[in-house]
């Protein structure tokens, strides 16, 4: 289909494609700022709500095995409904605007956080918990002082997955008037203007990378220090 000449024309257009979107953003800074804010707002509210529900639910699941499997099943079911489906369904009840989008983000965010909270707590070495018990800690003290701190890196990894997922899903918000960076995707498609499309898409990709990095760093900082054998110190006893 593509003649060689056309192919090289595409190649020649690539630098243009890659710079055009920056210019578009610079030409429309106010609109960009509003969309970015709307986008982040959906993500932050959706993810915060998901954390607020999934972490306690995950903890509850580790305390009671029956509650545990019920909770995990619900989380898994929430995950199987396509995001657009959720938006379409809830849109009928919640109307136009950011609310159905936030609901979709919330439902999607649940499972990764839930799964990781449960796995993180379950994978805490039983010897550590037993030590706490032998020391006279109540079950709440064991949770706060041993299980949660030791599970935290895994829980944070779940939140990281949810955030990355949410930045992508939030693009759909534009279809139901919730705003966000998706608006430029729609606009770009309507006008066959790649630079507008990219001006909407690339900031989202950058956002994902930045958030992913930030959480990776946070997880490493919070986790128990895993020092290698060669920086062990030898003070009194060899």
């Amino acid at each position: 289909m593509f003649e060689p000449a056309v192919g090289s024309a595409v190649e020649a257009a690539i630098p243009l494609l890659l710079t055009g979107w920056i210019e578009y953003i610079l030409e429309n800074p106010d609109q960009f700022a509003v969309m970015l804010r709307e986008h982040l707002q959906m993500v932050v509210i959706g993810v915060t709500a998901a954390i607020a529900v999934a972490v306690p639910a995950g903890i509850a699941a580790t305390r009671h095995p029956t509650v545990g499997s019920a909770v995990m099943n619900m989380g898994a079911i929430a995950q199987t409904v396509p995001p657009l489906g959720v938006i379409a369904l809830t849109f009928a009840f919640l109307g136009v605007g950011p609310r159905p989008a936030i609901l979709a983000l919330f439902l999607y965010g649940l499972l990764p956080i839930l799964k990781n909270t449960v796995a993180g707590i379950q994978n805490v070495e039983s010897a550590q918990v037993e030590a706490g018990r032998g020391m006279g800690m109540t079950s709440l003290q064991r949770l706060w002082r041993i299980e949660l701190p030791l599970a935290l890196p895994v829980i944070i990894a779940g939140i990281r997955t949810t955030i990355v997922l949410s930045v992508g899903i939030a693009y759909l918000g534009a279809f139901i008037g919730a705003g966000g960076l998706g608006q430029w995707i729609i606009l770009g498609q309507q006008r066959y203007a790649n630079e507008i499309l990219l001006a909407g898409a690339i900031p989202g990709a950058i956002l994902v990378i930045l958030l992913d990095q930030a959480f990776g760093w946070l997880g490493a900082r919070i986790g128990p220090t895993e020092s290698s054998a060669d920086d062990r110190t030898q003070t009194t006893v060899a």
Partner: protein
Amino acid sequence: MSHDTATETASNSIAFENVTKVYDDGTEAVTDVSFSVSSGETATLVGPSGCGKTTTMKMVNALVEPTTGTVSVDETPVSEYDPIELRRKVGYVIQDIGLFKHMTIEENVGIVPDIVGWSDDRIENRVTELLELVRLDDDVRTKYPQELSGGQQQRVGVARALAAEPEVMLMDEPFGALDPITREQLQNEFLDIQAGLDVTIVFVTHDIDEALKMGDKVAVLQDGELIQYDPPAELLRNPNNAFVESFLGEDRQLAQLQTVAVREVMGPANEAPTNDGGTPLSPDDTLRLAVQNWLRSETDVVPVVEDGTVVGSLSEVHIRSIFDGRSRAIEENHV
């Protein structure tokens, strides 16, 4: 090591009465075990892996509930205590150390004082005191357990168990994971530490030499049953059965020499030669040292000297006496 009999008048700090433990899966881990540990004494529980040592020990701090029988601490059945309160009063050195990985050494040592609500200042002072006691540099405070050597971690484990000034301490193979040299060093240091404390200890080990060294009394367990519970010297002298004998090992006579003082077997002073030429023995020397001196001595009888006066004599007959029934008669005459 205080194998003296003076403590026997003290009250029983820990008592097991016909205690049996059957786990939910049907494993009978402990069968009809009865013994008691006097206040301030150390009892070592020894036996092969899986014989029920840990299970027995965990019934003292209510981590395991007996199926039948009663375990008492300070003359009160464990079942009548609030388990949380009891565990906070009983120091616990966990098998495989069990330091909290996400906490600094300081936080690890101070954990029990912290959960029972001591002030930060008091905890800090106590941690300083304990690190000194277990001979760790103060700069380990801010380190994490993984940054310490095995021996250092074990010291932290002991310090943590001592933190809230417990009257009873449970130690589950505390030095089990260490190399022999570090282990011996820690054993000796712990004996020193313990001599300065008024604490009743249950010490679990699978190493008979450690059991004999650390215990005022040694409980030998086999398949959940208590086969023998005696002071080390008595255990070596009169093993109850073939199992205990084989467990004590081929060299039990040598070990036995280590547990008896010259005073317990020596003969009258008038049998001592006036001029021996060798190093005189003290009545408190172990027989093991005495045998060494005796072998080096020119004469068959070695004088025993205390404060410059000859108080007894030691010959081959006296040394041999510990290996036959006569030793008891001799011991009774002297104690």
